[in-house]
């Protein structure tokens, strides 16, 4: 039912710490395990992707880290060099270094130039059909609108020139919901949910990109149904708790207390999930990923999350 992995370019965003990198990596891993040739690009490169795939550090030059899965880290200066090399002919070849440096400066001065390089590199990989799917571990929700709106902004500020011509095809690609989608990641907490709702609005009003899906990460399991909850409440009564402790032969209070914590957390969080469901356009699928109670995060959890994503997508 879900065509998320049939798209060509997915930007994964969300508030800091919600699980953007985990979700982007698992999405890419899932697509690759289904036989697609995938590029995973870390934009805010801190090297977390390498940790989650247990691979050597990633660099601007992509590297196949597992079968069919290529990983890279965005680097605007390198992207600039590549851009100049691809777009300009021989006379400047030897001088690309200093010229790229000058441009890097220009990029911090001229609005949108840096962003357009990032988006441009990603769109280029799609256009050249080097991959079936490009997954972007993008910037946090505060910055993503600037990134996605850059082609439009540059398009309206720049009237002629190479960049102008390029924004045309980039915009076409970014606007096409069959090709490009934004995946917003959040957790069932107040701030991330609020930020996701606001993001959905801003993406609609200020960019041409479509919100393809909202991923709710770190969802705590529902411990029991209503009847079982009544049993649990009874277990915490002093006389019953004392009997349980006697039968078990060691201190059971922390076990009951932990269950209480789990129930409360699940309950306070479900309020935010309801709010999310209400505010997000019903045509945007919500995918839920469980909280992982693991000793560490690496290839194993990436696989687990990929499996959960696959189930949510109906594979």
């Amino acid at each position, binding site marked *: 039912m879900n065509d998320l992995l049939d798209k060509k370019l997915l930007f994964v965003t969300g508030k800091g710490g919600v699980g953007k990198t985990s979700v982007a990596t698992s999405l890419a891993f899932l697509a690759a395990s289904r036989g697609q040739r995938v590029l995973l690009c870390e934009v805010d490169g801190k090297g977390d992707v390498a940790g989650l795939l247990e691979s050597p550090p990633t660099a601007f030059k992509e590297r196949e880290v597992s079968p069919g899965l290529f990983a890279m880290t965005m680097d605007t200066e390198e992207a600039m060099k590549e851009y100049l090399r691809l777009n300009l002919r021989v006379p400047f070849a030897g001088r690309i270094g200093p010229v790229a440096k000058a441009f890097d*400066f220009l990029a911090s*001065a001229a*609005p949108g130039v*840096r962003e357009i390089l990032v988006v441009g590199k990603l769109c280029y990989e799609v256009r050249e059909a080097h991959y079936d799917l490009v997954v972007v571990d993008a910037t946090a929700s505060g910055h993503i*609108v600037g990134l996605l709106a850059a082609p439009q902004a540059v398009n309206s500020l720049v009237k002629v*020139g*190479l960049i102008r011509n390029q924004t045309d095809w980039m915009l076409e690609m970014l606007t096409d919901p069959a090709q490009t989608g934004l995946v917003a990641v959040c957790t069932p907490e107040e701030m991330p949910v609020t930020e996701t709702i606001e993001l959905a609005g801003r993406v609609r009003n200020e960019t041409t990109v479509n919100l393809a899906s909202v991923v709710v990460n770190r969802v705590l399991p529902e411990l029991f149904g209503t009847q079982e909850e009544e049993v649990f409440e009874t277990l915490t009564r002093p006389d019953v708790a004392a009997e349980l402790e006697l039968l078990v032969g060691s201190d059971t209070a922390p*076990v009951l207390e932990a269950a209480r914590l789990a129930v409360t957390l699940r309950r*306070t969080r479900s309020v935010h999930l309801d709010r999310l469901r209400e505010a997000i356009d019903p045509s945007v699928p919500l995918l839920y990923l469980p909280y992982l109670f693991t000793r560490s995060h690496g290839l194993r959890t990436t696989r687990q999350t990929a499996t959960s994503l696959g189930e949510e997508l109906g594979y």
Partner: protein
Amino acid sequence: MAPTEASERPSLERLLATREIMVACGPGGVGKTTTAAAAGVMAAVKHGGKVLVLTVDPARRLATALGLTGIGNKEHRVPDEAFAEAGLKSRGELWVAMLDTKQSWDDLIARHAPDEATRDEILANPLYQNISGRFIQSHDYIAMERLYEIHSEGRYDLIVVDTPPTRNALDFLDAPERMADFFSSRLLRWLIMPYRSRLVNVATKPFYQIADRILGTEFLGDISEFFILFQTMYDGFVERSRAVGRLLADRRTTFLVVSTLESVPLREAEFFAQELTSRHLHLGAMVMNKVLPEYLRGSEAADAAHTMAEQAGELGGLLSERMGPAHEPLRDSAQVTRVLKEISASFLNFQTVALREAEERDELSVAPEVMVSVPFFDTEIHDLGGLYRLGEQIWE
């Protein structure tokens, strides 16, 4: 809690009474905004004086609780009644303000522009509107700039600053320096060089030929025009950026690095703490937030959970038999067994995480006297009472 903590608290608490600026920073989503607000509440309640919390992105209910309903840079006083409602009494005044990036940029331009005509020209320039609204990490710079501005006005005894969610926790520290570098760059001089000289100057010719092809002469012209206007404010900007940098390094300023014990944010926070130290900035505290309760780590409790999981069938039967007569919900022994299985499995799950987090904390290469743990609250913190409870965990 570790036994050493009794001796470390006074020094941490002293920070609230002695520093003039307290910056809460750290990775995204860990509790910077909450910690900054809690510090403000604690300072107002415990030490008095005039305290300002300069916040960036408070959750809506927190913003409402603090009286931050509108937008704009206006400073609001949190009314005494709000403290009274939470059962608290403020010895001083708690003020809060939200950072409005666009407004702050406009103010900055107004301050540095040589005359009104230049000011209006800059404010109306489309490039400026783009830059101030969207680009050049303007958020980071403006947060520090605004802090400097308010501090130099001297209206507050303590300013607690929340930091924006940056790509990198260090961005806001580097922002003033980067802004100064930008304005002193040779490349900027190229950009604003008169058009005629560009193509004859040996150094700039290749750059301009390429730039023309890529960006078009017109856009390049717009950029130059904009920076020629900006140039008039050069001295003011550079001087100001340096002053902001000095203020951050001053002994009147202290930093609270906030993190959770999850490995990704923790690594970032640890790096940040090291970086502060190597830049001779004052690391006041490393706040480990949302720490799972200690009872999850006990080994006796783990034994109990294992027994409950292994013998759930038997235990369910016995409990049902003995307690069922007095407690109706326990009569179905299969259901009791299921619940025992669920809660023991859930305990062991949480224990895995709690133990991993405890180990992460023990391995931290940060001086233990600046470490503070704040427990995970199972209710959300969105009023003065909640902030005070959280503050107590840090400062008492």
